[in-house]
Each structure stands twice: as C-alpha cells, then as structure tokens.
C-alpha cells in the first residue's frame, strides 16, 4: 500500500492515461491484473474520433503514436467511469483535457457524479491542435487551468507535463503554484517516422509522440529536475517496462510510476513490476519506497 496525494494505491504502479482506458471494463481489467491505480483515457468536452490510422506503430526503439485525443465526450464517458468505479478496488483517476480553463471545468464537473478519486489534467498531448502541449508549454495557462480545476473539485488534481519544452521545471512550478497535488512527468516526446519505400510519414497525423524504452532517460532527467524544484510529489512515467526502470525513476524522485506502452508485453506488467519493487526493497533493507525516492539527489 502506498499513499499518494491522499489516495491509497495498492502498489506504486499506475495505468497511464491513453492505455486500455477507453472503457470502464478495460480499466477494471487492468486493476484486476495488478495496477495500483488506473487513469482513464483523456476525456474532453466533445466527442472526437481522433486521427486517421496508422495511429500507433511499434518502432525499433519504442512506440510512436498520434491518436488525436479520441474520446466519446464526458457525457458518454460518465457511464464508463461509473462502471470503472464500481468494479475497481483501486483509485480511478479521470484524465481530462480541453482548450481552455472553461473546457476543463465543464469536463471535470460533468464527470464528478461518477466520483473519480482524482483528476489528471492533460496539458501535454503533443499532437492535437489547440489542446494538450499547445497550452501545456505556457506556464501562465497551466497555472490558470490548474487553479480553476483545483478550486472547483474536492479531489486531488494531478497535472501531466510535456517534455517538449525548454524548461519543464517552470511548467511544473506553474502547476504547483496553481494548487496541483502532484505532477506527472512525462507525456510522449515529439517524434516522427517515415516509410522509406515511399517517403510517406507513417502516422496518419504525420507526426506524433514517442513512448517506450527510448524515452526513459529523458523522463528520468525530467523527474530528477522536477524533484529538485518542487515540494509536491512527482509521478514518473516514460519507458518503464520492468522493475529496474521503476526503481530508477523513484531514485530520480518519483513517488509512484505510471506504465503505458509496456502493456504491449502483457497486461500482467503491473503485478510483476510491483513484486520486483518489493523484492528490491526487502533485499536492500529498505522499509519502503520512501527510502529510495530521490536517492540520486542525496548520494552526491
């Protein structure tokens, strides 16, 4: 059991937004398969079908995607969230997005009847015009949106950050000033792949975001920098597929981790990483993950 922003997580591995989170049933499945908490697909004010396929492809070093924030809108998602809340014995966090503070409030308000355990604000999707990183790279906008949601809801608010900025710490600080209970770092890294038989960009959206193995060192550095600057907890995400990755992320400063693309290897990844973390702590004489969170900052 891990306590994070007041929520009791079964273990420190959390299903990341955008993975197996479109339906209530898939969220329940991930919780049953070992996730310590689950985050929904990002939900917005209007139904969106997303970009044309290919919307996700496996590359040599990770996964490239541009889903385009497909979602049924908060109105249609409410029943999915209710199903997830009824079926999950772990916290269910609603990921939400919008083009401005009013959009965020509308979605948060619309989903509140299902009683999500927290909200995660997606201000970091790298490939949706007018949403996500378009607003998440401006500290003033991030602070404004965070403050608006924090003032309006009575559950914890996490803010998911984009690495596609010059200084992620300034965005993290903006979220903290706005009242965020935690930041989540990082979303995918802007990337592109081209079909060399024809020259066509592979993704339907032409470019997108990279996840998986290749981005782990980028995420570790972002978490390390955020930990040094912020007082609120940091949830580390980016390229975690085994327990060693989770330990490394915690040593950089993460209080918990999120897992996304590694579901490709199997839905049991949460349980196996959580077990690996426990074994590591036991073997090294640590009382809990608190002993290793931010350790990399202390040993020098």
């Amino acid at each position, binding site marked *: 059991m891990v306590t994070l922003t007041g929520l009791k997580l079964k273990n420190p591995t959390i299903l990341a937004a*955008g*993975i*197996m*989170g*479109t*339906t*209530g*049933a*898939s*969220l*329940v*499945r*991930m919780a049953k398969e070992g996730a310590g908490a689950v985050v929904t*697909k990002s939900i917005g004010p209007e*139904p*969106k*079908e*997303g970009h*044309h*396929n*290919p*919307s*996700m*492809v*496996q*590359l040599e070093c990770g*996964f490239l*995607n541009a*889903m385009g924030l*497909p*979602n*049924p*809108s908060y109105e*249609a*998602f409410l029943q*999915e969230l209710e*199903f997830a809340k009824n079926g999950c014995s772990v916290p269910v966090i609603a990921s939400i997005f919008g083009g401005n503070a009013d959009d965020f409030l509308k979605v948060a308000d619309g989903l509140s009847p299902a009683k999500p355990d927290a909200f995660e604000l997606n201000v970091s999707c790298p490939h949706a015009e007018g949403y996500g990183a378009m607003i998440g790279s401006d500290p003033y906008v991030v602070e404004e949106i965070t403050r608006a949601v924090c003032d309006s809801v009575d559950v914890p608010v996490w803010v998911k950050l984009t690495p596609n900025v010059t200084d992620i710490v300034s965005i993290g600080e903006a979220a903290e000033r706005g009242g965020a209970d935690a930041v989540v770092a990082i979303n995918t890294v802007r990337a592109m*792949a081209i*079909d060399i*038989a*024809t020259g*066509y960009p*592979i993704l*339907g959206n032409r470019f997108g975001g990279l996840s998986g193995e290749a981005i782990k060192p980028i995420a570790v550095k972002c978490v390390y920098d955020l930990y040094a600057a912020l007082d609120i907890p940091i949830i580390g995400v980016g390229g975690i597929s085994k327990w060693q990755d989770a330990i490394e992320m915690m040593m950089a400063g993460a209080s918990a981790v999120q897992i*996304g*693309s590694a*579901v*490709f290897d199997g839905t049991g990844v949460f349980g196996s990483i959580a077990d690996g973390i426990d074994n590591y702590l036991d073997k090294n004489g640590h009382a809990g993950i608190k002993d290793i969170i931010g350790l990399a900052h202390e040993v020098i």
Partner: protein
Amino acid sequence: MRHINVTITNTVDESPSTRTFFFDKSFESAIPGQFVMVWIRGVDEIPMTLSYTNAITVQKVGDATSALFKLDVGDSLGIRGPFGNGFTLPQKDEKILLIAGGVGAAPLAPLAEHVANSGTWSNVTTILGARNVNELIFANRFFMTGEIHVTTDDGTQGRRGFVTDVLSEIDISEYDKIYTCGPEIMMARVFEILHKAGAHSKAEFSLHRYFKCAIGVCGACCMDPHGLRVCKDGPVFNGELLVDTEFGKYKRGASGIRGRV
C-alpha cells in the same frame, strides 16, 4: 514492426462489391483468422484478414476501402502483421463446420483449405450465405474442400433464407469444432443457436471492432464486460468468452461512443 511494402500483382472481383488483391509477398506464418493492418498511404490503415497467404479480400464499405478499390496492379500498400489470434486449428480427423456470411468467407476459405490439405477432405462442412448469388464469396473454394450448403436471402442460388436456417436443422453434435465469420447480427444468431444447444464452447467467432493501435495497447477495441481486446485477445474468440457480453448487442466506434452492431 514497421510496414512492409507490397505491390499488387493481381486483382479479382469476387462480387460487385468485393475484390481480392494479391500481393508480391506472402505471409506463410499467418494462421487463418489472424489479420494484417493494410495501409493505404495518405488515406488510412484498416484491419483485413488474409484470404490467401498473399491476398486480402475487401468489401467496399467506406472511404478507406473505396480508396483501396482505386488501386491497381503495380500499385503498392504498406502491411504490418499478422496480428491477433487466429482460429484454433482442428486436430487431424476432427469434423469441422464452417459458417460464413458474405465477405466473412475470407478467413474461413484458407482454414477450409488448410484442413483439407492436412486431413481427409470429407471432414469439412460449410454453410455459406450471402444476400444473392452475385455476393457469394469463395463458393468454389469451399466446394473443393468438402460438403457445402449454400443459402441466399433472395433464393437466387441454393436455399432461400439464412445460414442459420441450415444450422437449426443439422445435427450440431456431429461436429468437433465450429468456426464462423460474417456480419455480427448473423454470428449473434449462430451463437444463440449453439448456446441453446450447449455447443458454443466448441465454436469460434471472428469479431470486428474499430481498431486504432491494433497491437493491444490503446484499448479502443475492448469489449464489455471483461475488457477483452478484439485486436490482441481476439479477433477470434471461443464462444465461451462471448456469453453475456456486448457481442451481438452494441459496439463502440472511433470516438468510443456505443452504437448498434
């Protein structure tokens, strides 16, 4: 896995709305029922089952398939796969029943041929249905592999009616394994008959849902209430897994909104 580039070497019109596209590359390791993602560059990428080791059979139903129909011999496509779980291949000497509706014949014809080539040909029975005689797909391939019952909605060939009319009359207990692919409304009716007969757990159903990632990560194609991914846990499911599910009732579209099957 990146797309491999294939060139169209031949096209065959199977019906007024259905065409087979043959490639210069063959997917020998693919199990009947598995699918590939077919990238019509600059347009879209759609899941398609292999109807031969080197071909797909496509019904023109929307923008992507219409764009595909504009391609000709010498044009190229991007293909990734095969993905998902195909049909459980029968043991030697098992008697199998195939129930195919319309373009649902596409994954079943290679299965019939696989079985016929590895066992005794008399072990395959097919019920093949279509709206009318012109829409019957691969009748000859099924005819060459065993016994065939043909139905058409309008009676222009075979029996007038539906595949389920034949299914209701035959002795289901004679068959060791049953495989079906076709419109979901048809498969749901097949499921109902088999479930009533207690035979659904020896049957496999090839399902369709809107795919995005196609590799079991995004969750867009998950079914209620167990969260099974059609792209990765399927697309072929044992009937046991479909009891009391959304199958035959509703499905989600690209945005995740539920709609009719």
